[in-house]
């Protein structure tokens, strides 16, 4: 029996693919199974799929797969809409309440939403309703702390980001919600970057003035799944890497074009050049590691930022001095070159596999 939902879904997909290919082989008369073999195989697959559906709620055919995707999108939109509704609902009526009532409503909403998550989780086999309820609980908690700050005129502080991060991560692991994992990691990134900024004497809201503040935790997030296994949580390892990579590449991209935002005491031109070089090297390294480890999120993110770095560099060099048609022609030809190189790598990998 597979350990995780990902493994269970992979097995279900493999069974479907196997059945489709078997059908084709029989039609082409390349393979003929005896009746008892076919019946035995079908019975085995039926029992296995029933077990996988019962334990992991996997999608057992293309139709259910499409429906699952639609449910995920609906769950996300529903969570965002309900969170926005909650925010505007509170703004609409909070002025009609005294401070004690306001505090009671805010705290009550947070605990009520956690209770709803617990009750929904006990009955929800698919997990979609649980994730929606969990998102709403996170929105309630953020609203809780933010509004308490407004009601009592509390000095704004980055310290609120840490409990938000922990709350989101607890719900993410409790409900296997990747979106909440992203929310928690973003809050954590903001908190650590703001703290590093304040240690340097800056105001916490100026976190964006020094993009390098994001780099330490970005690196930690990229390698964390190697040290703390996320195998039991579907897609969490990829999410850590993806968030970490974006938190790494965006500051490097910013500093590659805006050297004044760096801590380094060098000339701005040298800083920008250094970060441009670092961006290219890091993107290439990320692509290489991602293809070796078969981590598609690394390959795709590395490739995306490699292209962004390349095109911003080409823009710097040629936009002013070249006719526009020629500039875009060269961009197009570079894209075609990428296609040829990637196609060749793909064919080579296919040859190696044989």
């Amino acid at each position, binding site marked *: 029996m597979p350990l995780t939902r990902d493994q269970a879904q992979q097995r279900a997909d493999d069974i479907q693919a196997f059945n489709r290919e078997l059908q084709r082989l029989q039609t082409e008369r390349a393979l003929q199974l005896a009746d008892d073999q076919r019946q035995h195989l079908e019975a085995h697959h039926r029992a296995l799929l029933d077990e996988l559906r019962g334990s992991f709620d996997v999608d057992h055919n293309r139709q259910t797969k499409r429906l699952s995707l639609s449910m995920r999108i609906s769950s996300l939109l529903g969570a965002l809409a309900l969170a926005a509704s909650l925010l505007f609902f509170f*703004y609409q009526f909070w002025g009609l309440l005294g401070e004690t009532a306001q505090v009671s409503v805010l705290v009550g909403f947070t605990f009520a939403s956690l209770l709803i998550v617990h009750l929904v989780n006990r009955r929800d086999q698919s997990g979609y309703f649980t994730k929606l309820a969990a998102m709403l609980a996170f929105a309630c908690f953020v609203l809780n702390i933010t509004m308490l700050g*407004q009601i009592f005129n509390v000095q704004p502080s980055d310290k609120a980001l840490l409990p938000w991060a922990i709350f989101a991560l*607890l719900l993410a692991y*409790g409900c296997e919600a990747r979106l909440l994992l992203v929310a928690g990691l973003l809050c954590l990134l903001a908190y650590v970057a703001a703290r590093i900024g304040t240690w340097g004497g800056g105001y916490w809201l100026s976190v964006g*003035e020094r993009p390098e503040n994001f780099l330490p935790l970005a690196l930690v997030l990229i390698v964390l799944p190697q040290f703390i296994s996320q195998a039991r949580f579907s897609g969490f390892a990829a999410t850590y890497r993806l968030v970490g990579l974006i938190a790494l590449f965006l500051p490097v991209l910013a500093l590659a074009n805006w050297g004044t935002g760096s801590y380094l005491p060098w000339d701005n031109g040298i800083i920008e050049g250094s970060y441009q070089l670092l961006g290219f090297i890091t993107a290439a390294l990320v692509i290489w590691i991602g293809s070796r480890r078969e981590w598609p999120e690394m390959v795709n993110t590395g490739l995306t930022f490699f292209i962004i770095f390349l095109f911003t560099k080409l823009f710097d060099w040629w936009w002013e001095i070249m006719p526009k048609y020629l500039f875009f022609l060269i961009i197009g030809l570079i894209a075609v070159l990428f296609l040829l190189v990637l196609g060749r790598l793909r064919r080579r990998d296919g040859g190696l596999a044989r």
Partner: protein
Amino acid sequence: MKALSSSRCLAGAAVLALLVNAVVLGNTLYNRSGDADSQLRLSQRELSNRWSYFDNQENSGLSLKLQWTRLNEDATRYSDTPFSAEQLRAAGIDTDTPVTQPKRLPERDTLVVLELDGPAHQATLQDLQRRREKAAAKLAATPDDARLKSALEEAERMLRNSRDLYSRLYAVDIGLDRDALRQRYPDRRQYAIVHGVLSSWITNEKREWHLSRITPGEVSVPYQWRDALSGRVKNDDAPYEVEITFGQRLEPWISDAFLP
């Protein structure tokens, strides 16, 4: 196993929510306990919502914004007046390092001394009075000059507005040592120490720091005064006064309102 893990996580989230709310409310109670750090009686000139362009129909709450300014070298009102090197050093900012390249520096947190209707405001009024007298004297010498007439009207308008309309709250000093600031400005009914944020820019190869905002810059109006004040904040002819108390953590709250 999955259900147990989920329950533990939810229980952890509940405990966290309880702790955080306890900390926030505990800090608020502490802020409002003991003797106030300062108490200012501000009018609609210093505490208003008048300049809010977005009248949000869907927000039933009401917050009033602190309106403050700074005194410039020539005694005019200018909120971006930079601070002196001595003041900046007291705020922990290095003023000795020369500006070798236009490096953007992050904003800095500091304590700010706000003065209500004190020497800074009087200096502004005296300067405006002098300008008005000067404009009147020039017009008296050449009574038919339309430009001089217009200049006198403008001088009178500025004096009138500064005397009757504009805020009397001036940010006069900064620093990191709260006790030292309070020793220098002991009158707690005229001087409030608050948190503020300094921003810098480079002018003529020199780095200048100015006060970009007070934090928190707005004060929530308690329920008992909300209806009365919300009717007055947009009305120039409906004056009001509000007593703002700054507590142990220098966080403000409205402790009283006076509505003639």
